[in-house]
């Protein structure tokens, strides 16, 4: 298939960026979107140009590194799919495709399509872990956890921290990410001792990083490759109030 790509190019955080147009005359519908960029990069390198920088690691939809806004939607048009798992058969011959980085103040562009997501790491450092001594690895099922609760914790824990929720939100809000990282422990006994300080400190760090607030528009849920539900945001609102009242 023949495609026209409009790709954001930016040398570094200090330099202004702009869109460049590239023709790809020989794309295959079996390529993933990242393989399409690899293919384009090979021809750029052959022509002595700088290849397009973009993030990726596992390329199987589990690591959360890939992060492209494709035609105005984070991870592209296919729901519940990371852009590394998006294939060119989702597009038509002759399509014009706009490729942009995540856009948010707390995600500054490092180069081209690569953004700095260490703001997410700092939110996790603020409380997204269990620090209490739980001893050695417990026997399976030694700590009984109801199936419903375990399922909810797992639904939150599948968050890969890619940041598509921030990229999709009209307010660049990180609440879906933070709420999932709070909920994955709030539903397990191991998470209880630090439950209040966790939500308090993670929300505090989220605000300090400069993310926007939630206005319940829910495009985050629509963009999430793991379909994390906004239900966790309601839970976080409740938990944050409880933590603050008893502070």
């Amino acid at each position, binding site marked *: 298939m023949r495609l026209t790509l409009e790709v954001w190019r930016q040398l570094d955080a200090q330099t202004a960026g702009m869109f460049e147009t590239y023709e790809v005359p020989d794309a295959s519908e079996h390529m993933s979107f990242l393989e399409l960029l690899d293919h384009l990069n090979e021809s750029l390198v052959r022509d002595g140009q700088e290849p397009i920088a973009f993030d990726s690691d596992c390329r199987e939809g589990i690591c959360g590194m890939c992060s492209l806004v494709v035609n105005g939607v984070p991870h592209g048009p296919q729901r519940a799919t990371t852009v590394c798992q998006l294939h060119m058969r989702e597009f038509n011959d002759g399509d014009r495709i706009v490729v942009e980085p995540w856009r948010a103040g707390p995600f500054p562009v490092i180069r081209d399509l690569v953004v700095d997501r260490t703001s997410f790491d700092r939110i996790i450092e603020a409380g997204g872990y269990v620090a209490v001594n739980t001893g*050695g690895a417990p026997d399976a099922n030694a700590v009984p956890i109801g199936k419903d609760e375990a399922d909810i914790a797992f639904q939150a824990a599948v968050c890969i921290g890619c940041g598509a929720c921030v990229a999709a939100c009209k307010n660049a809000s990180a609440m879906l990410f933070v709420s999932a990282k709070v909920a994955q422990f709030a539903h397990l006994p191991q998470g209880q001792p630090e439950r209040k300080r966790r939500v*308090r400190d993670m*929300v505090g760090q989220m605000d300090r990083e400069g993310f926007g607030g939630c*206005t319940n528009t829910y495009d985050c849920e629509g963009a999430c490759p793991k379909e994390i539900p906004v239900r966790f945001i*309601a839970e976080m609102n*409740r938990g944050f109030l409880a933590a603050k009242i008893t502070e």
Partner: protein
Amino acid sequence: MKATPPLPSLPRPSVPLLSYVTSTIGRKTLVAITGLMLFGFVIMHLAGNLLIYQGPAALNEYAAFLKSKPAVVWAGRIGLLGALSVHLWGTLSLAARNRSARPVGYRMRRTIVSTLSSRTMVLTGFTILAFVVYHLLHFTVGVTHPDHHALVEATATGTRHDVFAMVVAGFREPVVASIYIVAQVMLAVHLSHGVASTVQTLGFNHPTFTPLVKRGGITVAVLLALGNGSIPIAVLAGWIGGNA
């Protein structure tokens, strides 16, 4: 297994809850609570307005009753002004923050599941605000149509404010009636997101009930607008107050 050492106690904030109301979540909660107060008022106000369908006596009686309780009326006014001020502060300060959270915008942006009403809350909110100011000047203070506001009706003991005649005279002017109708549409759009949004903000989301709350919120918002909006339409059509 070693006993877990107790966690150090949490640091105490210097002013309790100040850090809550300045956080994004806390501010949004204040927006939800004040929105709910305004919503409650709008429902009660509609109940009063609908008395117009019972004729001049019922409406004027109700108006005179309210006037005879100045303490209640002023408590309500101060409460509403307070709620509106907090609602405005919360929404506008958050909206400014939300805009600055994305200094460089997208070349192309598609919404995925969000509704138009959820994305236009500032616009519909400001339209409502402008309408509220006009509405107060029109019917409460009597600045825009002093002649309508001065209308009185005779009673056994003297005269009283003829609210019925004032409303009919006002809505016989198509421009005035249209302002009211447009404002009601804007309020319905605001609340068709706002009601369900409040429930989420206050921390309730449930796989079964949340879809019902969404539909219920839209239904109430539309009924509210139909109820209020029917009055200028009925006056223009001559169903209330006869033909001019």
